[in-house]
C-alpha cells in the first residue's frame, strides 16, 4: 500500500541551521499521526514541507505516491489548520469556509451549501454570516477546521491547533478531532509540543529533537519503551537512570527509564529498596508528585492523592518492580 506521506532522507537547512536533518518517515493512509517535540525540533518544518510552504534542501517527499518536490502548495490536495487559524478577516465565516471551493471555480450556490455543511460538521451551523473577529478562539478553531475539511483533502495538517485554547476546551476538541478523523477517514498529521495531547489522540507518534526523529511508534511504545534518554524525559517526564544505577538492578550496563508512577514510596524503616530523601511535594489534584534525592540522583515519583506521606526532608525507601525498569537502546 502506498503511504499517504513518505519522507526519504529529507533535509531542510536554513543557512547553517539544520531544521530538518535526514528524516525518514512513512505515514499510512487514514492514520492519525502526531509529530511531537520541543519548539525548534523541526516538527513544524516537516509539516510545512508536506504543505509545500518549504522545499526540501535534500531528499524526496511523496504524497500518495506522487513526488511533491517543486509542487507549489496550491497544487497539493493537502490542507492546513494553522496555529493561529489564519482566517481571512475581510470575509465572513461562510466565505472563509467556501474559499477553497471558490478559487477552484465551484459555483456560488454549490460552494455555499458545501460550506454550510462543513460548518454543521464542526458544530457551528448558522454562524456563516459572522466575521472571524466576532468569534471566540474555540469557534475560530472550528471554522479553520471546516475551511480545510470542505476541500476533502487527502491529508489534513494541523499545526498546534489546540495550543491557544484553554484546558477544558482543549480536552473537548481533542475528543472531537479524534472522532471526526474516524468518521472522515482522512489522514491527519498533527504537530504538538504537548505529549499528553499526542499520546491521547494519535495512532502513532514521531518524537522530534534537533531536526531528527528520535523514535516513531504507538503512544504505548513511546511511553512505555522509550529508546533514548531524550524520549524518556520528554514524553511523560520519566526518571532517566544512569547505567551504573541500572546495572545494580538489571545486571546490564545501560541507560534505563522508570516512570514516576512505578515508584512506591514508604518510610525508611522497611527493608530493602533505594534509600532516598523526600525533598519536595507537588500537589496536582488526582496525584501528588514527589521530588526525591537518592544519594545525589534526582528522582520523581507520582503517588495517588491522599497517600500518607513522610514530612519533607525525611528519609524514605523507594521500591519498584523490575519489569517497570525499562532499558533503553542508547549506548551507555
Amino acid at each position: 500500500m502506498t503511504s499517504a506521506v513518505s519522507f526519504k532522507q529529507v533535509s531542510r537547512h536554513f543557512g547553517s541551521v539544520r531544521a530538518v536533518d535526514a528524516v525518514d518517515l512513512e505515514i499510512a493512509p487514514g492514520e492519525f499521526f502526531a509529530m511531537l517535540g520541543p519548539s525548534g525540533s523541526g516538527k513544524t518544518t516537516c509539516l510545512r514541507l508536506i504543505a509545500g510552504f518549504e522545499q526540501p534542501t535534500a531528499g524526496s517527499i511523496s504524497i500518495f505516491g506522487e513526488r511533491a518536490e517543486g509542487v507549489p502548495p496550491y497544487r497539493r490536495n493537502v490542507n492546513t489548520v494553522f496555529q493561529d487559524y489564519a482566517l481571512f478577516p475581510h470575509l465572513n465565516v461562510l466565505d472563509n469556509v467556501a474559499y477553497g471551493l471558490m478559487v477552484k471555480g465551484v459555483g456560488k450556490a454549490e460552494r455555499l451549501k458545501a460550506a454550510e455543511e462543513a460548518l454543521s460538521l464542526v458544530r457551528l451551523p448558522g454562524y456563516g454570516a459572522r466575521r472571524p473577529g466576532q468569534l471566540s478562539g474555540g469557534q475560530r478553531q472550528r471554522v479553520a477546521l471546516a475551511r480545510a475539511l470542505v476541500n476533502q483533502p487527502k491529508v489534513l495538517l494541523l499545526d498546534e491547533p489546540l495550543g491557544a485554547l484553554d484546558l477544558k476546551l482543549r480536552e473537548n476538541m481533542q475528543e472531537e478531532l479524534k472522532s471526526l478523523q474516524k468518521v472522515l477517514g482522512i489522514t491527519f498529521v498533527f504537530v504538538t509540543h504537548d505529549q499528553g495531547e499526542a499520546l491521547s489522540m494519535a495512532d502513532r507518534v514521531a518524537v522530534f529533537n534537533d531536526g531528527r526523529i528520535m523514535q516513531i511508534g504507538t503512544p504505548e511504545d513511546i511511553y512505555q519503551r522509550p529508546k533514548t534518554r531524550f524520549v524518556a524525559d520528554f514524553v511523560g517526564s520519566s526518571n532517566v537512570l544512569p547505567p551504573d544505577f541500572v546495572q545494580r538492578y538489571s545486571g546490564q550496563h545501560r541507560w534505563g527509564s522508570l516512570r514516576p508512577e512505578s515508584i512506591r514510596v514508604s518510610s525508611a524503616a522497611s527493608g530493602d529498596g533505594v534509600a532516598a530523601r523526600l525533598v519536595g511535594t507537588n500537589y496536582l489534584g488526582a496525584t501528588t508528585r514527589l521530588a526525591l534525592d537518592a544519594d545525589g540522583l534526582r528522582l520523581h515519583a507520582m503517588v495517588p492523592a491522599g497517600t500518607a506521606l513522610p514530612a519533607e526532608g525525611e528519609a524514605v525507601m523507594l521500591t519498584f518492580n523490575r519489569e517497570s525498569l525499562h532499558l533503553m537502546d542508547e549506548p551507555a
Partner: protein
Amino acid sequence: MTIAAVQSKPAPAILPGSGGMRGAFSDLFWRRPQLLLLLMLLPPVLWLGIVYIGSLFALLLQSFFSIDEFSGLINREFTLKTYGDLFQAANLDIILRTVTMAALVTLAAAVVAFPIAYYAARYARGRWKALFYLGVMLPLWSSYLVKIYAWKLILAKEGILTWLLAKLNLLWLLDGWLSLPIVGGNSLSVSFTGTFIVFVYVWLPFMILPVQAALERVPGNLVEASSDLGASPGQTFRNVLFPLALPGIVAGSIFTFSLTLGDYIIPQIIGTSRLFIGQAVYSQQGTAGNIPLAAAFTVVPIVIMGFYLWGAKRMGAFDAL
C-alpha cells in the same frame, strides 16, 4: 537586605503630595482627565476652527458673489451667476482635464507603488528597510521646485531621456508616442505625458507609505492559507492581498488625487499651455482679478473629493481600518 538598608525608616502607605502648583495640577489632572484633554485640544481646535474652516467658509461665500464686468469690482450680492460662468464649455474642459489627469495619476501611482510597498512590507528587513524608507522619503525632503526643474531637463528634447532612447535605437518609440493626439507634443516636457510622469513621480511617496502600512498589517500566514486552499498567486492577490491593502490604497489615492486636483506648479512648468484647475484659480484671482470665479473653481476639487470619499466609504474601503 539591600532594600532594608535603603529604607532606613518605615515608608508610609500614602506618599505626601509633591507640593506647590505643579503637584496640585498633577493631582487635579489625574482626577479630571477630561480637563487635561480640553486644555490640550483647545489651541488646535481654535486654529482649525477659526483660521482653517473660517477661511474655507469665506471662500465658499466668495463663490456666491459675482464680478461687475465693466468696473471689475466685486458685487456682494448672493447670486449663482459665477457658477453659471464656471459651467461654460472652456471651464468644464479645464475641470474634465484635471479630473482625468488626477484619476490617471492615482491609478498609475497605485500600480507603481504596490510592488514597492509589497517588497518593503514582506521582504525588507533591517538595513534594507531603512534604505527603503530613506529612498521613499528622500525626494520629499528636497525642494519641490528643484525636482520639477530637474524633470524638465530630463524630459526636454535635448534631455537625457531622448539621448538614452537614441542610444538604444528606440527614438522611433518616443516619436511615435509624441505624434499621438492629446498625449503627444513637441517633446515630453511640453506634453501631457510629461505632466503625468512628473505628477506620478512627485506624489508616489504618498501612495507607497499608506499601502506599505496596510500590507504590513496583513499577517503573512493569510497568504500561505490562501495558497494552501488552492489559490494561485494571482487569485491570492485578487482575493486576499488586494482587498486587505485597499484601505491603504484608498488612503494613498486621497493624497494623490487631491494633490493633483489642486496643483498649479507642475502643469505650469511641464506640459502644454492648456490649463488645470489650480492654474485657473491662480490666474483668475491674480491677473484676471475675478475672485468669485477663482473661489468657484476652488469649490470644484472640494466637492469632487467629497464624492470621492463618500464613494470610497460605500465601497467599504474604511471597514478594515
